[in-house]
């Protein structure tokens, strides 16, 4: 086989998610009253990148064969925090951004420490920490409010050169600064190895613990970047329980749509980003087709089921039925 075929096989999940997104977005913009314009793209990007950041966060943890049910709450907590701190002069704003991102890192590190060194199951550990993070958010913002440095907010949610959505460029930068180095580092590989087969990884002398810890910590950071951006879009902070939980669950859906295996060891954050964008577009499709918004959850669910089924065809080829359970 040629090299490009292997590349294709490696990127299959990502490309599938990209394809689903393109098809949906094409249908969406073709039927949008305003058509495919910079404005439509900008709105879609601004909505899409929020879930994309959270989905990237989820990807890092899912790769290690774990799951992070607190990402939505880190997102909410950092939103509330940003609505207090990311304001004032340039220096004050910069300080605020750093504190918000640092908080995300800390939340992720706590999750990682509990799961790796405390040996608790990720699902329970992160439900608990998620509740704690939400509690802190509620203390910070008992009622919605606050404000944000609007110059920075408008800059990052606007357009560059009149056409390119700034939020999308920000997403790209984060991918280059966080995801690419991680996935190509020894620790990133350790995270994949631990997710795929922890015993084999241990026997091969892979730094499993440090790899997993880094994955959880960076997941906290990425969720915090999402929290920062939602503040830029809304200009306020709100400790909304339903919204935080929705982000957590949607991030899992986006990750699966993006070809990341919930069993660990396989997938890429790029795929999860397209999964997130595709998932958002599913919701938007309803508006352009003038469906009753009441139909949205049902419709989203059906489309999600169909998309996820595409990845399950391999099971028909299994010859030893015991492999169904592996």
């Amino acid at each position: 086989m040629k090299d490009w075929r292997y590349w294709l096989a490696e990127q299959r999940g990502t490309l599938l998610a990209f394809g689903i997104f393109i098809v949906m977005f094409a249908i969406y913009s073709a039927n949008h009253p305003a058509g495919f314009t910079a404005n439509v793209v900008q709105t879609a990007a601004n909505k899409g990148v929020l879930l994309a950041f959270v989905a990237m966060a989820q990807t890092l943890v899912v790769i290690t064969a774990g799951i992070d049910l607190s990402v939505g709450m880190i997102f909410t907590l950092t939103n509330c925090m940003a609505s207090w701190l990311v304001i004032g002069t340039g220096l004050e704003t910069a300080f605020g951004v750093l504190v918000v991102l640092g908080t995300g890192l800390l939340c992720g590190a706590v999750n990682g420490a509990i799961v790796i060194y405390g040996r608790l199951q990720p699902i329970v550990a992160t439900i608990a920490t998620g509740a704690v993070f939400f509690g802190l958010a509620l203390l910070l913002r008992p009622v919605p409010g606050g404000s944000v440095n609007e110059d920075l907010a408008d800059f990052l949610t606007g357009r560059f050169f009149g056409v390119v959505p700034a939020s999308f460029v920000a997403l790209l930068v984060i991918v280059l600064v966080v995801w690419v180095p991680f996935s190509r580092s020894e620790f990133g590989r350790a995270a994949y190895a631990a997710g795929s087969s922890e015993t084999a990884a241990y026997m091969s002398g892979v730094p499993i613990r440090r790899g997993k810890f880094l994955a959880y910590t960076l997941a906290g950071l990425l969720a915090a970047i999402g929290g920062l951006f939602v503040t830029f879009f809304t200009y306020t902070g709100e400790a909304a329980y339903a919204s935080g939980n929705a982000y957590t669950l949607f991030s899992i859906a986006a990750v699966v749509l993006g070809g990341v295996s919930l069993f660990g060891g396989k997938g890429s954050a790029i795929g999860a980003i397209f999964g997130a964008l595709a998932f958002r577009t599913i919701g938007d499709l309803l508006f352009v087709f003038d469906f009753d918004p009441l139909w949205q959850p049902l419709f989203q669910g059906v489309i999600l089921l169909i998309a996820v089924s595409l990845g399950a065809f391999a099971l028909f080829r299994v010859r030893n039925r015991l492999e169904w359970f592996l």
Partner: protein
Amino acid sequence: MDGAAPLFRMEGISKRYGGVRALEKADLTVTAGGIHAILGENGAGKSTLIKIMAGVVAPDEGTMTLDGHEVSFASPAAANQAGIVCIFQELSLIPELSVADNIVISDPPKRFGMIDRKAQRRIAEEALARAGASDIHPRALVKDLPLSRRQMVEIAKALARKPRILILDEATSALTAADVAKVFEVLKRLRSEGLALLYISHRMNEIAELADHCTVFRNGRNVASYPAGSKSDNEVVELMIGREYSHIFPPKPGPTAAATTVLEARNLSWADRLDNISLSVRAGEVVGLGGLDGQGQRELLLAFFGVLRGLSGEILIDGKPVSIASPTEASHGRIGMALIPEDRKTEGLMLPMTVRENLSFAALDRLSKAGIIDRVAEQRLIDDMVGLLAIKTAGLDIPVGALSGGNQQKVVIAKWLMRQPRIILLNDPTRGIDVGTKQEIYQLMRKLADAGAAILFYSTDYDELIGCCDRVLVLYDGAVKRELVGDGITEHALIASALNIHGDASRIELGGKA
């Protein structure tokens, strides 16, 4: 290599697991530039010996010296540092990563803190070429490779660590004949480069072709050490056996009048694991499956039990062809089959659930009326079973995981006896349990056969096959190579046919597909 100073020496090494002595004052000397074969039966202590060398387990007593200096290894990584690399039987590859990723996994080349993928590719290609496996693409995912290719990757991975002593533990067991030939060339080249190789294999012909020196282990001790080629296969087999076994087996009833055939297979084949197997088991008969581990015995039992898809050939029950599509079909209705699985912890029991629940699982349909479990009937049947098998438990409502290994295995067997099966398949049921329980299982097996059950019994322990079976079929490479009957079931015949040495061992054949 005579006269060369030993590179590595082990003296007086002992290791106990619980009350079981795995090694007792064992010695081994390894010289550079030589291939040293280690022979012995299952459980003779070979695996423990190399695990100690490779830093996986620590010895209870004894010393190891490398280059004349005393050494001890706290972890596999420490042994690697010292230049001792082991290719274990259980593969240590990570399935979702590529071949190249796996080859460099313990020490990837880095550039600016990130993995240098070009350098990685180069190292992987070199290592694959050195292992004679350039046909494997470095970007292929390990999980997509067949077992024989994975084994080659494992060898390449070991070579990439630049070992001084390379240990191969049954490293050729999954390889095709063509691959074996390639690996042998590589090993001979490594020998000429001055590496010390330790080669563990059950295949006599491989050892004859490869080894310079042989050491035979038995019961945890090295019993003989001799230059390769100085002893006949017969003598070697004698050295490997050379032990008494106590009479813990129930008497066999002897040849019975022609009972009806209950279970029959005709030309059964599956993938490349089962090759045209025909056999029959009569009511009241215990038929053994012998051979080295992994020659298709497990797959054969799974095939009968409806787990494998895409079987060719026929399965007949009471002389009528049937198609069995699932374990449910196999165990229900007129087929009445039961499989005591190999790994009781994953395939036999739900460890956290209670003894009672575990006992009832396979027979829930029989214990229920209109979908509701009849507690009284359940209790009666469970009492019968606990009595019959003498299961020692503090109560029926404690987790089955709290029982001893032997009692856990009894629960697995009892759970199937609740259905009163007519056909019982046993997959190495006595692995890792104590002698007392073993003896009870042997007696139970004979009792069930006397009551009319047809029993197919796979065991890795030759004594068991000799002591329990009316007939033994020896498998090699997925095919039945030999049938031993009655007094013809001897340890010598079993070992010789398992190694695929024919007749009086004067003729050696390369495993069926040369």
